[in-house]
């Protein structure tokens, strides 16, 4: 039951924010659309309703802070590369293997999306059996697997584990 309520509330909130008004008409259409969405997608979206805890949503907000900080740093780094006089001398591109340790599909998706959303790192391939991401990195600073993991994915991975595992 809980899963349907949460999906219903999330889609209703998305609808109301998107519409941007809370007249009676909007609320009625919003409730109609969100109840259909919740009954159809509730079972697919939430596999384990016991994981729907408040602390995971709090962790999501803390993840956003980390994400913004990483983004700012990566944007400035790439801007410096783009503006450097000799571009191909200032980059050291390579495809590195980054292992991850996450159980849920949502967690892996969040991790891969965060890495790709950071300018400078891009997930090219994913191996679920080896639990490894193949990441194209514009400036390979080290070839030590644990150091690569520290720089590329550690902070995202910890947040993803706390949110989804």
């Amino acid at each position, binding site marked *: 039951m809980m899963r349907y309520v949460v999906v219903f509330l999330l889609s209703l909130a998305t609808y109301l*924010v998107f519409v*941007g008004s809370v007249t009676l008409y909007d609320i009625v259409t919003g409730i109609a659309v969100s109840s259909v969405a919740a009954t159809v997608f509730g079972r697919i979206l939430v596999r384990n309703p016991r994981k729907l805890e408040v602390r995971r949503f709090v962790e999501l907000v803390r993840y956003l802070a980390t994400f913004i900080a990483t983004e700012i740093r990566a944007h400035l780094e790439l*801007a410096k590369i*783009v*503006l450097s006089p000799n571009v191909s001398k200032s980059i050291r*591109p390579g495809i590195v293997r980054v292992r991850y340790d996450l159980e849920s599909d949502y967690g892996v998706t969040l991790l891969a*999306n965060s890495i*790709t959303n950071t300018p400078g790192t891009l997930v090219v391939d994913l191996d679920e059996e080896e639990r490894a991401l193949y990441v194209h990195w514009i400036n390979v600073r080290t*070839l030590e697997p644990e150091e690569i993991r520290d720089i590329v994915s550690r902070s995202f991975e910890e947040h993803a584990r706390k949110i989804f595992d």
Partner: protein
Amino acid sequence: MIEGVLMLVGSVLILVGSLFDLLAALGLLRLPDLYTRIHALTMGTIGGAVLPLIGVALVAAGWVELGSYRWYLAGAAIVTAILILMLAPAGSHAIARAAYRARSPSPSYVVIDELAKKVRGGGR
């Protein structure tokens, strides 16, 4: 008062966003191969689309003359920003993966390529 602050912060975000868009376009022209250009593209979607969309939302929220429509504009901009944040990496990932598998533009200037062992060794 609060409206003025919202509009100022929003305008700054839009300005910074357009700057990142310019840098991304420059990167697309200057970087050597497909994969490094996708990095510039990422800068164009996060710094050049998500950031100014949040700026648009703030400007709209602070624009009193728009009446009740300002919440409609602000809400649509915020939802669009979140959707781009979730969907854009899927696109970049699909392009990079397809290009690597097809080996049509093989990555140039590569220091290390750990995926090559797997793709070629597996005989796929």
